[in-house]
């Protein structure tokens, strides 16, 4: 159990690191490109590509982090109206099915990465193998799937509350104040 906990902590730290620095890198690239062009009349050709790589990485690596924090967007209109027991059942079912679907997507995106690897395609500016970038898609889906399994498990284990993520209890059972506090991480 302790080893798992350590692993979990390590993963969340890595996810947080990737999300933070992906955003910071995008800002640095876009600003750097604009300033360099304005001041030195030189446009670094890799700037756009690096930003786009960062956005792909952030998007897919963010899947599990958003799942942990219960921040995936859903159309919760009817769910919000449901009674506790039904919400509890749905939370378990949805987490399980979502996990399975994410694993299916992991499989196909891994095949895609292999395909790109075989073609040897490189990126335009950096001339870097393109599969490096796509590698983050199956990784993101896989970690997302694992996290949704954990979301299911915590809902099974703790009978007192509904969780929309392992780190987030259902807002329907909380008062407004808690939500406001969560708005700013």
């Amino acid at each position: 159990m302790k080893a798992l906990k350590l692993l979990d902590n390590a993963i969340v730290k890595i996810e947080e690191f990737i999300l933070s620095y992906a955003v910071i890198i995008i800002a640095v690239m876009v600003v750097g490109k604009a300033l360099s062009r304005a001041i030195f009349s030189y446009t670094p050709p890799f700037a756009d590509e690096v930003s786009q790589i960062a956005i792909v990485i952030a998007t897919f690596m963010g899947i599990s982090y958003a799942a942990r924090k219960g921040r995936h967007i859903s159309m919760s209109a009817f769910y919000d109206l449901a009674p506790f027991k039904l919400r509890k059942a749905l939370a378990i079912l949805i987490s399980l099915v979502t996990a399975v679907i994410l694993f299916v997507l992991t499989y196909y995106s891994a095949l895609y990465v292999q395909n790109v690897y075989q073609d040897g395609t490189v990126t335009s500016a950096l001339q870097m193998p393109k599969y490096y970038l796509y590698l983050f898609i199956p990784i993101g889906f896989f970690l997302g799937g694992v996290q949704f399994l954990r979301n299911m498990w915590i809902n099974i284990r703790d009978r007192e509350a509904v969780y929309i993520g392992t780190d987030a209890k259902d807002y329907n059972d909380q008062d407004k104040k808690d939500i406001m506090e969560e708005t700013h991480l």
Partner: protein
Amino acid sequence: ACGGDSGNGDSGESADGGDGQSYNWRFVTEEVDGQVQYEYAEEFAKRMKEKSDGAVNIDVYEFGGLGSETDQVEQLQNGAVELAVMSPGFTGNMVKEGQIFALHFLFPDDVEKTQEILNTSEALNTDLRERYEEYSISPLSYWTEGAMQWTSSGTALEEPSDFQNFKMRTQTSPLILESYKAYDADPTPMSWSELYTALDRGTVEGQENPIFFIGDASFYEVQDYMTVSNHNNYVAMTTVNTEWYEGLNDDMKAMVDETVEEMQEWVFEEQKSQNEEWLETIKNDEENPTEVIELTKEQREMFKDKAMPVRDFYRENVSTVDGEILDKLQEEISSAGE
């Protein structure tokens, strides 16, 4: 709603009974309705249908719904679509030799002569084709969509020195950057969707495209000059998925080949009329005046001199066959006599 009847037609399977096979193929292009590639594909589909007495039905896809140009290349490779018009530029990160068409002043100034070379060149139709076929892409023909021209604001681009400190919007590939560095320009990669605004506000000062595209995308509205430089050609390839093509029966293959062949003349006229029409429109638009500049022979030579070293860059840094295809093509071009 519309049921499963729309899901027919995977990879040339028989779709109806009656007196023989029928074929449903997909033909994807990098352009939209009205532009050269799309019109090509429509005409191609029409001719195939007529020749086959309606047995061959080709759905033509315009750019947009199926993702980016490179996505479309992969879809051809996977056999999701059977036919595609693609420009070698979008495959240049996979089939490196395809970047040959980005070289400046390689082909003759005259577009008609260029098209003749594209039709007959062994370097392209055999050697380059073999490179593509390693990736399941068979280019059946090469054709020009028109020569590339420069547009600019502030500075009229007439000789290499006009490019000094000139912010030229380019693609990001090292070869294209090198091509403009050769003129001492400041190559400025800029996404297509921001280009109109960037030209309008002077974030970048110029761009390159064939005339019909300069017209279609309204770039001339926000530019002062258009230099008819013919510095290279926007070359497109009619491509098919190699395994699919090899699997066609002989009659069908012959019909495809014949149509590809006869389309060469058709598309030359099509691009010519589109480019000429837009040239007139651009010249006559008084609300957005654009001065059209023709390069003299001397000016062209000046550019060509500057552009020559880029061919070595191609040989050393791009080509995977030490520029063999380029050398052969150069010979073919010079024996075609410019």
